[in-house]
């Protein structure tokens, strides 16, 4: 028996009061925690997947859609660009001056929900992908798959499959053109894990009609990932592209910033809501402790008689507030990580990323600190009053 166990016993002797305070605090901290988990992981993935790409050149349309589809492989592609037109553009001295490297990206097909991307070996290199098994594609119709694809679809080197048109896997299967897995990549933590990579020629080959090869004049890719030599390039090239050609160039950095801005409002509202809930929970702890003082005035005076100093009574009440706060926090964190675990599956489908429920952030420690501070502040006035109990007056009263 000590002050800590007495605090605990006092808390559970009023179960409904305790439940209310815990519920509110759990709700508030849980909400903040899950917002943190989701936004941090989304931002992480977006940053990782940008991999230093300065511009994306693709068909005219929504710049945001271009970035989402060509870089993050969410959302539908905006259309295709003609390879010849692009090469004509690249032959200009201005273009060569500012552009260091381009990587073609052809998307539009998929296999069992995972996208097939036609590109060059520079693409896996960009994401520092290493081979776990086999090799990178060489010949037409050879495919190297990402780690999540291998795991989910249980595919390995040597497997043969058919691609389907469309990114959702609902389109017609290209049943005459079997594709063969020749390599599996190690996990990279980027979008590559969820993709099936192959050469651009494979994508062209798959779409060719019987015996009618696509001639080089009408060869298309979905987009080009562009690396510039300097900042001027990032500003100048889009202007040139937009004015001189039928293509569009956009900066993924700017588009993601815009995306954060758009969603930021929604997240801010949720954050404010969470703070309101937490404040109300603090209030409920305060009210329940304050009310309890009247009920236990005699027992507080008695404790003084038994040898408790005013400071001890102060700590008793403070502990009651802090214990409630910590408990509420733990329940909230438990709930949010559990909710994350439930959401993992559906988030992954929408965003093509691996979300983790077992990730614990530094911010969640700050949240704990905040919860403890809340408990302390809520209990402060009741604790001071308790410590000021006048023994004689109280015990003469009753």
């Amino acid at each position, binding site marked *: 028996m000590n002050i800590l166990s007495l605090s605990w016993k006092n808390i559970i002797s009023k179960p409904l009061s305790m439940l209310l305070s815990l519920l509110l605090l759990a709700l508030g901290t849980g909400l903040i925690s899950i917002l943190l988990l989701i936004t941090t992981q989304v931002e992480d993935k977006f940053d990782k997947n940008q991999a230093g790409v300065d511009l994306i050149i693709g068909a005219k349309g929504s710049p945001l859609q271009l970035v989402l589809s060509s870089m993050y492989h969410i959302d539908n592609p905006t259309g295709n660009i003609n390879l010849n037109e692009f090469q004509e553009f690249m032959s200009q001295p201005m273009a060569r001056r500012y552009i260091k490297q381009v990587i073609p990206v052809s998307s539009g097909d998929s296999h069992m929900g995972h996208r097939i991307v036609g590109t060059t070996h520079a693409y896996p290199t960009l994401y520092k992908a290493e081979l776990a098994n086999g090799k990178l594609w060489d010949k037409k119709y050879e495919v190297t798959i990402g780690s999540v694809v291998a795991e989910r679809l249980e595919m390995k080197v040597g497997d043969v499959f058919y691609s389907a048109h469309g990114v959702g896997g609902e389109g017609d299967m290209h049943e005459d053109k079997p594709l063969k897995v020749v390599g599996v990549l190690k996990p990279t933590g980027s979008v590559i894990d969820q993709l099936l990579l192959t050469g651009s020629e494979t994508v062209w080959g798959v779409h060719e009609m019987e015996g009618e090869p696509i001639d080089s004049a009408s060869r298309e890719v979905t987009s080009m990932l562009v690396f510039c030599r300097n900042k001027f390039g990032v500003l100048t090239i889009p202007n040139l592209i937009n004015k001189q050609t039928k293509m569009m160039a956009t900066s993924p950095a700017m588009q993601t910033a815009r995306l954060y801005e758009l969603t930021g409002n929604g997240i801010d509202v949720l954050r404010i809501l969470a703070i309101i809930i937490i404040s109300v929970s603090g209030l409920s702890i305060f009210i329940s402790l304050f009310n309890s003082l009247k009920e236990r005035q005699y027992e507080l005076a008695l404790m003084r*008689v038994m040898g408790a*100093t005013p400071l001890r009574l102060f700590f008793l009440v403070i502990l009651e507030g802090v214990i409630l706060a910590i408990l509420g926090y733990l329940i909230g964190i438990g709930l949010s990580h559990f909710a994350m675990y439930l959401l993992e599956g559906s988030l992954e489908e929408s965003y093509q990323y691996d979300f983790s429920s077992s990730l614990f952030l530094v911010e969640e420690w700050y949240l704990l600190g905040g919860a403890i501070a809340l408990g302390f502040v809520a209990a402060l006035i009741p604790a001071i009053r308790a410590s000021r109990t006048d023994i004689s007056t109280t015990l003469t009263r009753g």
Partner: protein
Amino acid sequence: MLITKNVSYSYQSSSDVLTFPDINCKSGEHWLLLGQSGSGKTTLLHLLGGLLRPKNGSIQIGDTEIQQLASAKLDQFRGKNIGIIFQKPHFVGALTVEQNLQIAQYLANEPQDKSRIQSLLDSLNLGHKLKSKTSELSEGEKQRVSIARALINKPEVILADEPTSALDDDNCTEVLKLLETQAKEQNAILLIVTHDTRLKDHFENQINLV
């Protein structure tokens, strides 16, 4: 021993000063402080228990002059050396009988001794109520538990405020015997403050408060 000299007290709300006769008790003595309502007997008891500070004078328990002790030291001293039984029994509601006694030991910085608790409760016929919540006790049981609580740390002085006033003659004798036996066992000073004249014949040492 318990010795007071020239003790006086004034309530904050009035300028009236209450003066009390000097008291001189040796270890093991049993004293009765008789006085009518309003004679200040509860105030005197609270002064002796260190719950109030006197305006003037000294109160000595053992070798210590308690009016000189700083607040925290006074609390500690009281927990260890003075057992007070109040008119109405009060307990820590969230705790069982046993835990109430444990916390009395804890707050006085005494070791928590469950066997002592058990034997004390047994001697008061409460052994079977060890794990009961205090709210489940009868009035008589409550009073006996509060006596146990006052005695648990083997105090030098036991102060009782109107322990028999609400009781019928039989119970009055019971409680009196209880207090005297327990006090004798610990060789403690027993000081009962009351207006109950039934107790007059039981005490050798008496002080009348006017």
